């Protein structure tokens, strides 16, 4: 069942939340953004704990914004799990079915089924306070799923766990969500988690959604400076449009003249997709791993050959094993290159690299 927020507005004395987006049926959408951007507030508006000042919330085409939380049929997994400390694992999971007035036998069967689903079969009689963090998280998930919700909301469900457990559990959440085909909204501030889990990611900033896209598109084609620099690492260079050359836009930058693929993987020149106006100030964006080291032994030779060649000086090397990050300086700008770990470099050495036009983007400044 799909979820749609239509021109939803919530005003606070120091904060304004404006939401207009859709979660498609069966989709897992992550809300990603820095803390304080309104992710959790968005979730609480959908759940019904906060009522918006304006706008409509529709679930499966039906308005739900007038319903109290307990009539919305939405399952929630809380950041702190919010397990009921006075109830056993099984009673926690059975709480929802019980509230729905299910028969004892049906609830019991449902509890068995869900504990199996989250790999906690046989844990029913334990006290929730005696479980590990990961186990509590699974119980919270099972409890949210037990009354057959039409929508699942997860509020940073893995943030209290250590890195290793987090990876395992996020795979499991994904598997269960797929298995049930459950429409899901997942709040997180961890980009890796968002990229790994989501069908689509909504990047939020200051109470608005900056961009919603599939993880791959979002990473490769950010539509704003904020998205480009929030997700992964970005090299950002001031640029000015010089003209056009077939499918490529030519820009002048402190690093020299750059050719940027207008269609294909390069992001739109501007929001409307119209041709860039010559002289317009933009920002050239490319990922550190989008740079190719020039193969020729002598940097001088190939320095001006091929498109988008840059000569730079290595300032710092961060060796990570399989990869290495080179911080280089060119034309007074600091750039980062993400290169395979096999080549050796030294600080102070000159280096020449190229950025293929299809890995470049132009963003509005």
């Amino acid at each position, binding site marked *: 069942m799909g979820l749609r927020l239509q021109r939803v507005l919530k005003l606070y004395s120091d904060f304004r939340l404006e939401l207009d987006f859709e979660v498609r049926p069966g989709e897992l959408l992550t809300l990603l953004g820095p803390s304080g951007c309104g992710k959790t507030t968005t979730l*609480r508006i959908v*759940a*019904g*704990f*906060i009522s918006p000042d304006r706008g409509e919330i529709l679930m499966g085409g039906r308005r739900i914004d007038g319903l*109290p*939380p*307990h*009539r*919305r*049929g*939405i*399952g*929630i997994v*809380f*950041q*702190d799990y*919010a*397990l*009921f*400390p*006075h109830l056993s694992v099984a009673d926690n999971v059975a*709480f*929802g079915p019980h*509230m*729905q007035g299910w028969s004892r036998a049906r609830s019991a069967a449902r509890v068995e089924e869900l504990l199996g689903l989250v790999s906690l079969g046989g844990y029913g009689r334990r006290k929730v306070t005696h479980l590990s963090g990961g186990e509590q998280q699974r119980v919270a998930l099972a*409890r*949210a799923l*037990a*009354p057959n919700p039409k929508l699942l909301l997860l509020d940073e469900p893995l943030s209290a766990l250590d890195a290793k457990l987090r990876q395992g559990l996020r795979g499991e959440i994904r598997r269960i969500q797929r298995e049930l085909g459950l429409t899901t909204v997942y709040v997180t501030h961890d980009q890796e988690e968002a990229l790994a889990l989501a069908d689509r990611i909504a990047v939020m900033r200051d109470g608005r959604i900056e961009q919603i896209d599939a993880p791959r598109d979002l990473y490769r084609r950010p539509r704003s400076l904020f998205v480009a620099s929030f997700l992964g690492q970005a090299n950002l260079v001031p640029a000015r449009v010089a003209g056009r050359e077939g499918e490529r836009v030519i820009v002048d930058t402190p690093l020299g003249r750059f050719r940027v693929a207008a269609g294909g993987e390069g992001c739109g020149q501007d929001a409307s997709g119209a041709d860039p106006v010559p002289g317009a100030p933009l920002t050239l964006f490319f990922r550190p791993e989008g740079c190719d080291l020039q193969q020729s032994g002598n940097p001088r030779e190939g320095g001006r050959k091929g498109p988008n060649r840059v000569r730079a000086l290595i300032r710092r090397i961060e060796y990570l094993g399989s990869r290495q990050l080179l911080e280089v300086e060119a034309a007074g700008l600091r750039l980062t290159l993400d290169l395979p770990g096999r080549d050796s470099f030294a600080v102070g050495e000159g280096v020449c690299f190229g950025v293929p036009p299809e890995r470049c983007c132009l963003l509005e400044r």
Partner: protein
Amino acid sequence: MSPPSGPRGLPGRVGALLVRRPSANEPEGLSLPLSLLVLLGPAAFLVWFFFYPLGSVFATGVSVARVSRILGDSYYRRIIAFTIEQAFLSTVLAVLMGLPGAYLLARYEFLGKRFVRALTTVPFVLPSIIVVLGFVRFFGNNGVLNRALMAVFDLDEPPLRVLYSLKAILLAHAFYNFPICVRIVSAVWSRLRPSTEEAARSLGAHGMRLFWRVTLPQILPGILSAAALIFIFCLLSFAVVLVLGGGPRYSTVEVEVYRLAKLSVDLQSASALAFVGSLISLGFLYLYIRLQSRASFGEELSGAGELPRLRTLLRRPAGVLFLLYLGMMTLVVLAPMATVVAYSFQARTGWNLRTVSLEWYRRILEAGGPYLRAVLNSLFFAALTVLFSLPLGTLLAYVAARTRMRGRQVLEALMMLPIGISSVILGLGYLKAFRSLPGLGDRLQGSWYAIVLAHTVIAYPFVIRAAGAMFRKIKPSLVEAARSLGAGPWRVFWRLELPLARSALVTGAAFAFGISVGEINATLMLYNARLTTIPVMIYRLIGSYNFIGACAMGSVLMAFCFLAFMIIDRAGEEV
């Protein structure tokens, strides 16, 4: 703060209930109509059985002429001055006695520390009449201490004459209340960051200078808060002054109101004096709440490190003094109680001849006798008090914790007001208010439900305090989780919040039981021969110098209070 008889609860939380902590990310809370609906019953109860009686006292007392007559009369002026004077001196004494104990509890680890800490709750659960009795038997002319001194030094006369004097009042108050100082100050002291003292030490401060310049300024809010609380207790103290003061010379406002109303039947003067007294006590209560909010009762520091063992003190001469102090103070708290119990197992066989006997317990258990009747009355009143005050306090605490209403602080202050009104005055209010009602008046005075209602009004703020703290501790996400799983507000309350608050409700019930069973102030105003309770019976037995009987009844009372104490201690562990 009113009932200095009976348990008075952990003072650290009184202010917390009156001054609401703002909390981020609160759940949606109760809507205004729902809040008002829930408040309806409790509010009606309080208006009828607290505000109306209180108002009728003040309505009689508050006229410029009467108040100025009271204030102009040198006799009453002296009584008011003495009330404040004895409270001030008692407080200074209690704080001085308590500070070393606070230091030891905060800074050292020792065997039985848990026991000593538990002992500091004794003032909250021990009825004042027991303190009086223990004091008389232990420090009295014919008491344990004097007889021991006479035996050791071969004296003919008791060397210590303290009863029926200012000394007696001050000593009893100090012994009764110094554990409060130990409790509050040690809590603040143990939460000091050790790093500030370490920093001062590295900068060259040590010994007394370290204490004066670095430690004392940090624990001062705690000391002032403890002092203000003790001051209020002593201001409203009733049984101690009534018995140990021994007459009009050492009368306080409380005792004088009782005398005027009950013995002289001058309700108008009693009301005027009660009004003046209430203004004074409410003023100091306000002061206490302000001080309380300044003392930091932050989270226990986890990185405080391990405390040194107490025996390391033995290496210093001053340390030995500390150890002596610890022993003395434990004795001071326990000895009067032990004396009461020990004395209760005696029987007179002739002038000055005594044997060990269960004679008095036999008499207490005698079917149809006045003593058994008093015990049963007390239990009956206490059971009904629990029955009434538990739902009353729980509902009020719930609304206070969850409502979205504006003016919540005013609401909470109104709810907690009985704490700042002495129960003698409450009893006076019942006498006045319900006398004027045709029919009900005669029946209410000297009827069992007048006592139960008064006890309920005195006890319910302690239920609010226990339950309110718990309702606030319930994480908002728990409530939201239950809501998202399909539980409406009503079912969230019954299936989630009430079960989670269970241990707090047990604590509240134990407090209510203990308060009712030890209450003497309002009871003395309202009882008649049929309705004698254990404390009243003890008071009468003391009055007729029947100390063995008083001690036997006292032991029975202590057994009930010990029960309440154990339940509170247990529940406190769970919370």
